[in-house]
């Protein structure tokens, strides 16, 4: 998508009403039955409101024109009319009942999570989503893939700027997918407009939602509940594929999990050089830590502590590992032990202990994956 050129787009808005057709002014095209029903309900309510607006304000503007003092109109003296008052109390009630009926039906539909074909557990973290296919034990963490540098440059270029992830949620078409949602830190909200689903993910509680996608496609959404600094940067991508493709995808993922596990297992036994750990660690740091602690390691005073010169980073290795692995409850500091593989945790800790002005003396300056793996038992 081209970057918007300011003067041009203003001219577009002001000069060519036809161009408005190009701009989204309504709910996105629905991809599920529920989303379609919501779309229709919104259209119905909108037209009713539009009708009432005309019925009320046409007489008002007529009065403003015909009964103006400048036209010499003298004021009447009436101040009451019981029949009218009753009429305009009762008629709105009837209209409201007409609107409430389909809405009630739809609520009951949306709340009916029974008879689902599969269940996905959605966990909100600051600031990424984690999906777990409960029937298969398959788990994946989904991060925004728009590079931080592109955002900071102020010049968006990606085709799906801010709405792209490294690993989407993949679901089969035609299946009723039940979501169970929770969060680990603060409240998030999982929202994909085309699916007609928005459900808050609340730490300590499990909430439910469901959808059934008709046709294959990619559907994008975002976190909808303010969850801190990265709130604007935790997109959701759902890819609906045919059941056959889904089965193939799942098999591939399961195989991938086995490979990853084997690699991780091998990594535990392996001793990495500091250069290897530093290179990997820098990538991990920028993807996971820099939002708060900044790529300069300086943090944001008062909100997010500096890594540069930090007592924990420059202190005993175990305390540093503990903080990264288990997080700090009550803050945005995640328990990365649950989110990252051992070698990444080892790499990022090594990176922090040897970057900026931090120069931890050997041998405490290097953390190997085996040390992290030891914590998992």
């Amino acid at each position, binding site marked *: 998508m081209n970057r*918007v050129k*300011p003067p041009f*787009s203003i001219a*577009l*808005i002001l000069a060519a009403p036809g161009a408005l057709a190009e*701009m*989204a002014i*309504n*709910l996105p095209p629905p991809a599920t039955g529920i989303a379609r029903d*919501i779309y229709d*309900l*919104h259209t119905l*309510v909108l037209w009713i409101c539009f009708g009432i607006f005309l019925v*009320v*304000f046409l007489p*008002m503007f007529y*009065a*403003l024109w015909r*009964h103006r*003092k400048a036209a010499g*109109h003298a*004021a*009447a003296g009436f*101040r009451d*009319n019981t029949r009218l*008052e009753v009429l*305009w109390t009762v008629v*709105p009630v009837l209209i409201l009942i007409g*609107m*409430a009926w389909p*809405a*009630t039906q739809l*609520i009951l539909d*949306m*709340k009916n999570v029974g008879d689902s074909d599969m269940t996905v557990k959605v966990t909100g973290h600051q600031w990424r989503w984690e999906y777990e296919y409960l029937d298969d034990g398959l788990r994946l963490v989904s991060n925004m893939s728009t590079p931080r540098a592109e*955002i*900071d440059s*102020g010049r*968006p270029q990606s085709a799906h700027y801010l709405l792209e992830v490294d690993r989407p949620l993949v679901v089969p078409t035609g299946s009723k997918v039940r979501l169970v949602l929770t969060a680990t830190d*603060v*409240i998030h*909200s999982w929202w994909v407009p085309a699916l*007609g689903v*928005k*459900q*808050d993910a*609340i*730490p*300590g509680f499990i909430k*439910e939602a469901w959808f059934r996608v008709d046709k294959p496609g990619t559907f994008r959404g975002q976190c*909808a*509940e*303010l969850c801190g*600094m*990265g*709130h*604007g940067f935790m997109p959701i991508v759902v890819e609906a594929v045919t059941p056959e493709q889904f089965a193939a995808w799942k098999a591939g993922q399961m195989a991938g999990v086995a490979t990853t596990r084997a690699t991780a297992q091998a990594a535990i036994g392996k001793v990495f050089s500091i250069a290897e750990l530093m290179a990997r660690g820098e990538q991990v740091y920028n993807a996971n830590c820099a939002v708060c602690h900044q790529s300069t390691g300086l943090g*944001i005073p*008062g*909100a997010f502590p500096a890594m540069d010169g930090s007592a924990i980073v420059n202190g005993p290795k175990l305390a540093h590992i503990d903080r990264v692995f288990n997080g700090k409850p009550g803050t945005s500091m995640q328990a990365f032990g649950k989110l990252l593989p051992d070698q990444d945790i080892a790499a990022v800790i090594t990176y922090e202990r040897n970057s900026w002005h931090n120069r931890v003396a050997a041998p405490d300056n290097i953390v190997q994956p085996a040390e992290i793996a030891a914590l998992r038992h």
Partner: protein
Amino acid sequence: MDAAAIHSGYQSHPTGPMRWLTSTNHKDIGTLYLWFSLSMFLVAGSLAMLIRAELFQPGLQLVQPGLFNQLTTMHGLLMIFGAIMPAFVGFANWQVPLMIGAPDMAFPRLNNWSFWLLPAAACLMLSSFFVPGGATSGGWTMYPPLYIQGGIAYDMTIFAIHIMGLSSILGAINIIVTILNLRTPGMKLMTMPIFVWTWLITAYLLVAVMPVLASVVTMLLTDRHFGTHFFDAAGGGDPVMFQHLFWFFGHPEVYIMILPAFGIVSTIIPTFARKPLFGYVSMVYAVASIAILSFLVWAHHMFTSGLPAGAQIFFMYSTMLIAVPTGVKVFNWVATLWRGSISFETPMLFALAMVCLFTIGGFSGLVLAMVPVDVQLQDTYYVVAHFHYVLFAGAALSIMGGIYYWLPKWTGHMYDERLGQIHFWLTAIACNITFFPMHFLGLAGMPRRIPDYAPQFADFNMMASVGGFVLGASQLLFLYTVIKCIRGGAAAGDKPWEGATTLEWTLPSPAPYHSFTTPPTLEPDNHHGHA
């Protein structure tokens, strides 16, 4: 009254800063409230300018995400607690005693204290921008657990809210006692001016819900520092309980900010239609029903929090029901205009714009009341559009209309009608350019409270930003027009508005420092407090 009498005896009072610091005079305190409100309006408005500047284009250009969240949070808190609520209390201070023929508020010293709490609270809140970590950035709704994560600014905000809440409660008690006890003989409750009625009901709402807000932020404070777990699931608490308690305050709060606006509009429209308010009794009942219903709709702010179907349906119905009394008010305003003799001075323009634009906000409220539609629109720009139509086009336009309406009485001078009209048209047009496209943004899928957005939202954001800058700049013209009116202008005379009927217009302009020291006599055929 001759000049000598004005400057002798009880008319004398301290001058300079001491006049304002120690004043127990309802007019001085009303003026203080209004200036305080205007300054907070400009401060909170400039935060909004920064927000709109960042959102002018996709990509991060001016403001980092952390600061952006501080700006949206503080814009909301300062506009609500600093600008809109104090403005209405300012009107109440000036106008309630004048309209009911009372010499002053019932508790003049309490009145002084109620006001002077506010600048202290505002200083506390504003200075939090400069503490480590910056100001509160968890949204004006302060949802935990996010709110538990914040730094010292979050505690400063909690204390500022305590102080502002105390000020509101004391002010409300004063208004209730004044209205119930100090009406001039012969003015019955059902013959009071409608503005006084709306404030009486608003004051009861304040007394009922501000303690709830104070309690819930205190619970946040103890969760933050004293080891309680009201809102922490790990300790047996529930973050959603905060939302229930907050919105039990928050929804009546919405009406606290709109009922006095109804009162102002219901005063201005009959004046410039030169015709009595249509359906006075049903207007009073409508305001009372809105107030009562406002306690039964809170969970419509929480339709995506995972309420059971039964609760969603109950709160949807109760919310839709509010459309009925609100509709009655709009219908009655139109009926008041019908076959009037209408003229279009600045206050009338603001009142008419309020009726139209507030109705748009009402309609979008109805759309949001439908649970399934709300699931799509909750926490999007559609909601931002909705509450700005209600709070800017509803409350702020009424406040501006009220200022133009009563400035002649307060200052003794007519405001500059040409400047007033320019200010009106700039404000009314810019307000729509700013807030109308936000409906489209929300429908198309843009969440609120994000510092950066996908490029498909770029055009409407740019439009909203351009509108916002014009809207902001226009308020400087408002400031100039008000100052110009205070410093001079054509003499207003006792009653500059031909169609005005309430008691304040029987006094000279500017209203003398002490007025109605003996209760005024109402005419035998008095209707609704009309002299």
